[in-house]
């Protein structure tokens, strides 16, 4: 029977990735406490599991490598060698190599270049640990043949004696199975049971084995193959195999070999050939995985104590998508019923609606994963970067268990790496500088995650030198990000670091790269419908705050009408809605319209104009929705408020194209499409009138007006380049 095991390769890749994560985490822990046996065991177990499974699935390169690593780990575990910093470093590199080897298997790509180099380094470390004892080569003991393959030999007659131990049965053994296996090896000439050891019935323990057997077997199999049959018997059990010629009379007296053994060699005994158990797999029988799964890495939903089921990511997404359609379908039915006069009153409809909402909530929770794994990777980044730069950094995480949408978690990794690198590279000072500044020599970098309302906040705080405003400003001017330093608030200056093409590093380092980092961070975060901002105190450190939506699938929205169209404003951004009289709306030349609300000057935007819906239509009813994004307020003028509703977000870009000011679309209960307003995008429009004036100048002049009128506004208005999307 040929059983295809390639289907388990996907599972293995997922599992191996988890093992590697655990290994990395444990290695970082080991650095602080090199003799922690529990940590060493964790690392060993991870390497061991990867080795076992990878060889089983035919990934010999991975197996070979992990075997070498395991040898070294074994020495550490046994206390023969100590986990020095260099060894930890080497093992961390090994984790990377395994990752590379796995990726190579998965995508049929080339293995990492440094494999051999790392293998020899591991071997050297092993030899140093064991005092020169050489390793049995990289592939040495993985595939250890238990026996020589059975060679065809002449037919021989063996006499086999089996004396099972008393406790034979308690090892799950069964004499019958052994005898049957022997019988299948050839031609059973004789079998005798010796019951002489059987005690009187009253003294007999029914769980014990008292019988002995003597067997005469004619077979082509070798003596070694016969011994193999007994490979599993317990130690107290004895067996003897001796060659007997056809004419031999057995020496053991109880066994009477009256049977004349036929001496002819060609009995029908060669029908069966035993394969030595647990021998190294030979190529003909090994299931050759042919598929090269390109599917994206799936991760476990939760690796807690509870039992988990792994589900293909695409199937999960499809499920969530379909449930979204169900929600829409349900509200369509509800509206139809309402048109028959049986809508909200219908108890059945109410119940169905509740079930559907619960179902949707549950489906979304399926895709929620803790951010711990991502945070874990940052620990490695901090370690590597600080080592490279010769800085001391203490890295602390909070809120690892905070859950957010898998899609978000997957995409936040890269921006976080940039941020963390920057914090260690540009934020934290060299130990001697810190000492001079009266700080502890070790810098402190803190990564926090927490939930607030429908958002997740990730904050990265360092106690480094903070941002130097002067340097920032001169750089910004030099790079043409801003025209002049005039009238920029402190907060705005800090947020200049998110401007495209902005770098604060005096020279480009190979750690933080060419300063594209923070710009990319902002773009990535905005792509996730999040926002990013920085607070910094010179000499004391900086805090970067990333706001992310809990999920990208649904949204609580305020439905507003613009003429005959419905738009949705994300409810989280809505502060309040008010009605103002036309004379409360002031026009400021070159900037646009503003209103004053409780002493605060707020930019006003006629939504239908901003979205270029209609120029003729002008609503002077003055119905305004005040929206806020990271402390910055704006008034949107609409025709009517229709109510609030949870909507399923449909990506507009994939279905149509990117529309400025629009974050996505949804389908309403009546089947109509409604567009979701992108608060950040719309706010840019306020600063970008149709004449194409550069945004920076516009905003600067707006801020100029703001700062001269109200301090509060200055705080909330920032340069467009630091502004954030909702």
């Amino acid at each position, binding site marked *: 029977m040929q059983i295809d095991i390639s289907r388990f390769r996907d599972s293995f890749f997922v599992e191996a990735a988890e093992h590697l994560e655990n290994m990395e985490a444990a290695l970082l822990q080991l650095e602080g406490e090199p003799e922690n046996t529990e940590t060493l065991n964790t690392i060993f177990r991870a390497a061991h599991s990867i080795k076992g499974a990878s060889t089983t699935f035919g990934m010999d390169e991975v197996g070979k490598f992990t075997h070498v690593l395991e040898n070294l780990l074994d020495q550490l575990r046994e206390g023969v060698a100590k986990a020095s910093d260099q060894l930890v470093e080497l093992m961390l590199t090994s984790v990377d190599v395994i990752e590379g080897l796995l990726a190579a298997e998965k995508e049929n790509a080339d293995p990492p270049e440094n494999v051999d180099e790392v293998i020899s380094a591991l071997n050297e470390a092993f030899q140093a640990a064991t005092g020169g004892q050489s390793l049995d080569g990289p592939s040495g003991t993985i595939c250890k043949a238990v026996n020589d393959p059975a060679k065809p030999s002449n037919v021989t007659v063996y006499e086999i004696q089996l004396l099972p131990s008393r406790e034979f049965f308690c090892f799950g053994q069964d004499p019958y199975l052994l005898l049957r296996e022997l019988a299948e090896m050839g031609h059973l000439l004789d079998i005798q049971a010796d019951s002489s050891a059987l005690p009187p019935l009253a003294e007999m323990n029914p769980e014990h084995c008292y019988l002995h057997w003597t067997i005469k077997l004619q077979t082509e199999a070798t003596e070694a193959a016969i011994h193999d049959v007994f490979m599993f018997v317990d130690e107290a059990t004895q067996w003897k195999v001796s060659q007997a010629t056809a004419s031999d009379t057995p020496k053991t007296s109880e066994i009477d070999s009256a049977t004349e053994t036929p001496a002819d060699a060609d009995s029908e005994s060669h029908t069966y050939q035993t394969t030595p158990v647990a021998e190294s797999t030979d190529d003909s029988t*090994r299931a050759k995985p042919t598929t090269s799964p390109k599917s994206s890495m799936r991760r476990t939903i939760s690796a807690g104590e509870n039992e988990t089921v792994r589900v293909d990511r695409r199937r999960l997404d499809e499920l969530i998508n379909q449930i979204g359609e169900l929600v829409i379908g349900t509200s369509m039915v509800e509206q139809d019923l309402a048109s028959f006069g049986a809508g909200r009153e219908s108890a059945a409809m109410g119940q169905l609606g509740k079930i559907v909402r619960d179902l949707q909530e549950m489906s979304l929770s399926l895709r929620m994963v803790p951010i711990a794994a991502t945070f874990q990777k940052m620990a490695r980044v901090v370690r590597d970067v600080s080592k490279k730069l010769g800085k001391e950094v203490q890295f602390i995480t909070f809120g690892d268990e905070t859950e957010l949408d898998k899609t978000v978690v997957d995409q936040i990794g890269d921006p976080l790496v940039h941020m963390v690198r920057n914090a260690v590279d540009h934020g934290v000072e060299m130990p001697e500088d810190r000492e001079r500044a009266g700080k502890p020599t070790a810098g402190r970098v803190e990564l926090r995650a927490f939930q607030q309302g429908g958002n997740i906040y990730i904050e990265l705080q360092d106690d480094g030198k903070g941002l130097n405003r002067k340097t920032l400003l001169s750089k910004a001017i030099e790079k043409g990000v801003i025209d002049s330093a005039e009238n920029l608030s402190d907060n705005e200056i800090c947020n200049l670091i998110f401007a495209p093409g902005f770098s604060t590093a005096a020279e480009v380092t190979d750690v933080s790269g060419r300063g594209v980092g923070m710009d990319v961070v902002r773009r990535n975060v905005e792509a996730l419908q999040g926002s990013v901002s920085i607070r910094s105190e010179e000499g004391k450190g900086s805090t970067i705050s990333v706001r992310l939506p809990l999920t990208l699938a649904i949204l609580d929205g305020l439905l507003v009408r613009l003429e005959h169209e419905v738009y949705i404003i994300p409810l989280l951004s809505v502060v309040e809605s008010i009605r103002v009289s036309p004379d409360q709306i002031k026009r400021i030349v070159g900037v646009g319209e503003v209103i004053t609300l409780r002493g605060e000057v707020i930019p006003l935007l006629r939504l239908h104009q901003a979205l270029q819906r209609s120029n003729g239509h002008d609503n002077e009813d003055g119905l305004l929705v005040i929206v806020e994004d990271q402390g910055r307020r704006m008034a949107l003028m609409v025709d009517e408020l229709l109510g609030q509703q949870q909507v399923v977000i449909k990506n507009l870009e994939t279905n149509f194209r990117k529309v400025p000011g629009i974050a996505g679309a949804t389908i309403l209960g009546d089947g109509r499409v409604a567009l979701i307003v992108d608060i950040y995008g719309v706010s840019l429009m306020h600063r970008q009138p149709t004449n194409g004036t550069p945004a920076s100048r516009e905003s600067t002049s707006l801020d100029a007006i703001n700062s001269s009128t109200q301090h509060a506004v200055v705080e909330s208005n920032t340069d467009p380049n630091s502004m954030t999307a909702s």
Partner: protein
Amino acid sequence: MSKTALVVDDSTSMRQMVAFTLQSAGFEVVEGCDGKDALAKSQGGNFNLVVTDLNMPNMDGITLIKELRTLPAFKFIPILMLTTESQDEKKQQGRAAGATGWMTKPFNPEQLLQVVAKVVK
């Protein structure tokens, strides 16, 4: 009546592979992700075979074998251990604990079935 096997391994892929192989040979399979889990699942069950990994978190294979052997329902059941350790030491420990036999990784499904045939009627 079909036979039931308890398959214990902390590696999902290995567990699935063993389970799948045994299922293809007509076994019903109960899976355990470590010794502790397996021991909990063994309660009250009627099993004909146990296949367990040795190196596992929470409760390792050796302890599991010892624990299982104290249960009347597992006293005579064949227990196979999966090991990558080719050293005799682990095997000896396993045997002392009451294991019937072992499989050295890597192995393929055919080899597993051969060993199973050795110990299961």
